């Protein structure tokens, strides 16, 4: 199924290229930006989350602070959502 869709998408892109259009649309690029930012945020949260749990287990910070610190990189994903409106 997925293979079929990918092929269809690829053919679409090829058709667009042959017609002199861009290889990827503005919405597509914006979606890519959001996706990559999500990926980066996930990677950052991995480390911060591990450290926050460690500190939480030692009772040296409160749960609220641990939560805020862990989701802090999520802001970058929110910022990239701007690209969806600016395209």
């Amino acid at each position, binding site marked *: 199924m997925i293979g079929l869709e990918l092929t269809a998408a690829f053919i679409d892109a090829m058709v667009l290229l042959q017609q002199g259009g861009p290889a990827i649309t503005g919405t597509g690029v914006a979606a890519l930006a959001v996706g990559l930012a999500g990926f980066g945020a996930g990677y950052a949260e991995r480390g911060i989350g*591990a*450290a926050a*749990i*460690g*500190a939480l*287990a*030692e009772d*040296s910070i409160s749960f609220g602070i641990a939560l805020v610190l862990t989701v802090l990189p999520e802001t970058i994903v929110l910022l990239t959502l701007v690209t969806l409106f600016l395209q």
Partner: protein
Amino acid sequence: MSTRTNGSGSNYEYVTARVRSRRAKLFDEDDYRKLIRMGPGEIARFMEESEYEEAMNALGARYSGVDLIEHALHRNLANHFDDLLRFAEGRLYDYIARYLRQFDAWNIKTVMRGIYSDAEREAVETDLIRAGEFSERRIERLLGAESIEAVIDVLADTMFGDALADAYGEYEERAVLVPLENAVDRAFYETLITGLPDEPSRATQLYIDFLEAEIDFRNIENALRLSRSGADVDPAEYYIGGGRLFDEEELGALVANTDELVSRLRESTYGDDLDAALSELESAEGLSGVERALNRALLEYSRTLSNRYPLSVCPVFAYVLAKMREVDNVRAIARGKEAGLDPETIEEELVMV
């Protein structure tokens, strides 16, 4: 506790977060000042209200007085270091496990000294720290050993086996423990750095850097001791390989000339950290002040490294060093109080950073 080398990623973030908050809970200068002014009973109560609560309660029925404090300190230390191994994964586990084998070395030396001086089994048992790789059974067998030869037999299948067997001849000849103790130390320090990847990654390089610094400090301590005592001992006998600062021949030459040794140390990478220790050396009569200053310098250097490289093995080792120092300090206070020393004398014996 065997070293796993095929582990995938290390969890530095988790382990350093835990270690850092544990380090923040160690006794600070104010606590020590309070402890110095207490009697042994009050020290025990103070410890019951701190980190050591669990160990104090568990051992309270079996021991009392300063013995209780000492047992609780050792048990708490062993628990903390076992925790480190429980937390760590991958390469980090491997580094910590290698480093904690120093307690195996410590235990072997303690048992051998006990046999050598005909000490009671209980007295030896108090001084053991069960944080290393040896199982309870092996430690029981070590404690049960009647002679040095039996100790070496018990250790035959460990990494200390060969080195001890080699040194045994010399022990028989001269009837002193020094060759055996040196063999244990060397076996420990040599396995610390061997078997690492040929092209070290950044993390491995930091591990090596930390240990090289520690080996350098050990060599400096030995060199200063030998040079001060003026004893006619071959410095090579005490030399530990793997440090950055000296090689074997150089150390031999420097021991004979204290001034040159001091100026060489001032110019080294550790010059700033060692400043206090070296001024102490020039002014002080005895060596104990210098050794404390050296210990303080090592602690400070380890703290610098752990602040400079937060996601590495350095904070973990810095914590291990700081915790061991705390145990030594509290024991010094308790034993000093028991012996009736005045607060000023005890305070001089402490290493605080």
